[in-house]
């Protein structure tokens, strides 16, 4: 870091002062300070690696016993043996719950974000944003409680309606009737839970759309929606995709609300309206302690799979969001 003191141009005959060089010669307390914060930075890194490696280490015996059948086949956690265990039903259940959640949550979240960044009156905007953040702060067990006692009884009627009139869509077929405790209902709750997450990130990227282009569009006579469609949306497209992916990561990991709703089953099903189905995190939470030593390894392997899955999605989504926020990759 050198402070360059140019020679004054007015008096060329002057002796050039020697440039003052500010060196980075840290004193001992500073070295301790820097070392300390560096250790904590490294600690975060170590923690992440430790999470992955401990789960992998303890999940490995289960994988050795079950082989790739672990992923391609489904079965219950049985005490003392790992061979019958497979995660396929939970894996498909996780994807189905997340899919329903995204289908319900993402459009609502994007609309909410548009409202917060484009429509809401400036004076109330801050409090409205706080309301949405509060939605993110409500513990998931309270969402689960609410869904179990309030949402579920109301949705069962809707499920019946869907199964009766939309059963030509394979997902809405019902073969064994009780329609509570279904993947659909779990997906709905998770969909509500991801709204604040997706909305919050979308709001941020929407509000970063350049004011000049917005005003230009309005000055050309665009209506508000046309302005949003032609200026805000193209600018925020990457960020929106990233936000939805982050929401997806949240939807995949949701444990407690799903566990309260879902009964759990070891059958791969696409009939999302009926009783049954499980997700990976639900499997871990409800079967913990029921399967002896090997069953435990099974669950830890499940945890490892979930960890890697969410890690990949989160990293990819974060990269996309950051790219969008920095304004790179946007043609204007």
């Amino acid at each position, binding site marked *: 870091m050198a402070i360059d003191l140019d020679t004054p141009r007015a008096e060329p005959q002057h002796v050039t002062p020697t440039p003052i060089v500010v060196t980075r010669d840290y004193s001992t307390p500073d070295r301790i300070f820097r070392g300390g914060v560096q250790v904590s930075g490294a600690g975060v890194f170590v923690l992440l690696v430790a999470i992955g490696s401990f789960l992998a280490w303890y999940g490995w015996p289960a994988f050795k016993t079950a082989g790739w059948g672990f992923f391609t086949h489904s079965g219950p956690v049985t005490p003392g043996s790992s061979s019958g265990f497979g995660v396929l039903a939970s894996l498909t259940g996780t994807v189905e719950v997340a899919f329903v959640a995204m289908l319900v949550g993402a459009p609502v979240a994007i609309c909410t974000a548009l409202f917060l960044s484009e429509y809401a009156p400036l004076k109330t905007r801050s409090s409205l944003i706080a309301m949405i953040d509060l939605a993110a702060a409500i513990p*998931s067990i309270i969402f689960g*409680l609410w869904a179990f006692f309030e949402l579920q009884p109301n949705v069962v009627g809707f499920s019946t309606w869907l199964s009766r009139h939309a059963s030509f869509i394979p997902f809405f077929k019902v073969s064994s009737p009780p329609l509570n405790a279904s993947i659909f209902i779990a997906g709905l709750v998770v969909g509500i839970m991801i709204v604040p997450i997706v909305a919050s990130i979308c709001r941020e990227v929407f509000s970063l759309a350049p004011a000049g282009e917005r005003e230009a569009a309005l000055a050309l006579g665009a209506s508000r929606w046309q302005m949003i469609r032609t200026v805000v949306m193209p600018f925020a497209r990457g960020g929106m995709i990233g936000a939805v992916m982050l929401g997806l990561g949240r939807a995949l990991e949701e444990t407690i609300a799903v566990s309260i709703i879902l009964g759990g089953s070891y059958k791969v099903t696409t009939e999302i309206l009926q009783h049954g189905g499980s997700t990976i995190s639900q499997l871990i939470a409800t079967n913990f302690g029921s399967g002896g030593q090997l069953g435990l390894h099974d669950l830890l392997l499940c945890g490892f799979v979930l960890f890697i899955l969410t890690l990949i999605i989160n990293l990819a989504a974060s990269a996309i969001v950051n790219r969008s926020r920095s304004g790179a990759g946007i043609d204007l």
Partner: protein
Amino acid sequence: MTTQTAPQGVLVTTTSASTQTPSSTRPPDTERGPAGGSGSGPGSDEPPTPPRPRRLPSPIRPSSFGAEDVFLLVASAVSALCLVWIVFYQLTSLSGGLGFLVAWYLTFLALTWLGTAQVIERQVATDRVVGVVVVSAALLVIGLVLFIVVWVAYKALPSIHWGSLFTKDQKNFQVADPNALRQVGILHAIIGTVEQVLIAVAIGVPFAVATAIYLNEVKGFGSRTVRTVVTAMSGTPSVVAGIFIYSMLILTHVLSYSGFAASLALVVILLPSVTRVVEEVLRVVPSGLREASQALGAPEWRTVWSVVLPTARSGVVTAVLLGVARIVGETAPLLFTAFGSQVINWNAFSHDQGALPLVIWSDVRQAQPVLIALAFQAAFVLMSLVLILFVLARIFSRPRGRKGGTRRGDSRPVEDDLMARMFVPVPIEESTDT
């Protein structure tokens, strides 16, 4: 735009020119053409006096929203209601309240579009329908949040017995007892939650603040990697945090099931969130302050300790409050670490310990109405805690007298984003400065 030679009638109706945007652009002035057009009317012989301007219709502004428009919306809503009622209950005998609502809403949108397109203009109609969708989605979410908060209170308050709730645990529960609710409380869970959260904060917050300082002040070797790692950790499933601590410490008999193990699991969740918020707070400390401090010869640690952190104090307090709100309701990590208990256990370092979320989790699955009532009461206490922390955080994060900094090139108030940073896995912004 064909201003010069356009015949009269064309420009008056905006709708005819569909390529033209429908909004506040007033129809172009015909009379501004060279010499007032091709000499229609008697005024064409006198060039200096402008001809009497034709009466233009008032310009259409999509943003103007008068009584007429409200009427249009209400009319659409009512007619949609009638239409759907007839189709739903009279013709097809469908059922289900939610299905009815969905059908009504969709019909309402369609009718609004049709009505507005008829009365005003098609592009205005689209604009308006989008507006209705956006506003109703936001109102739905906000309404839902308020509803859930009120609902928990509504379910819990009637059966609450204040005398025992905060003074008793669950060991005296007897199914047959008609006064069972007076014999049980959640003191054991409150003790557990308070101890676990406090230990987690004591470990997690200094760790997080140091990491944030590393990311934002020291920016040493590898800070890019740490930034990515913090971002990646924000998405760690809470259930994974639980089984990680379980496999690392309990399975290896370093610890038994205990409140302390639960605290460690909570640290895994707390750490990335608090780091993110504190990082955001440090980012808005004006760099002029740092430079001034360094110019006075202060060493780096002194600059951080005496200038940066005090400036960011309210933000750090916000981060801590929000961090507590974040972990106080976490259930999944506690299942594998604190395990839950029915009795009071003051010692967080040994034996199973209860916690508020665990009371809800285990009692709600019981068939006894008393236990379900207790679960609701625990939920109410938990919800109140989260609300109080949230409001406190909001108060702390509001800069006094607008002296709080804003981010570069970005005039959004910072406090709006701080809340979100805690609960949303927003990636940390790549710092662009070197």
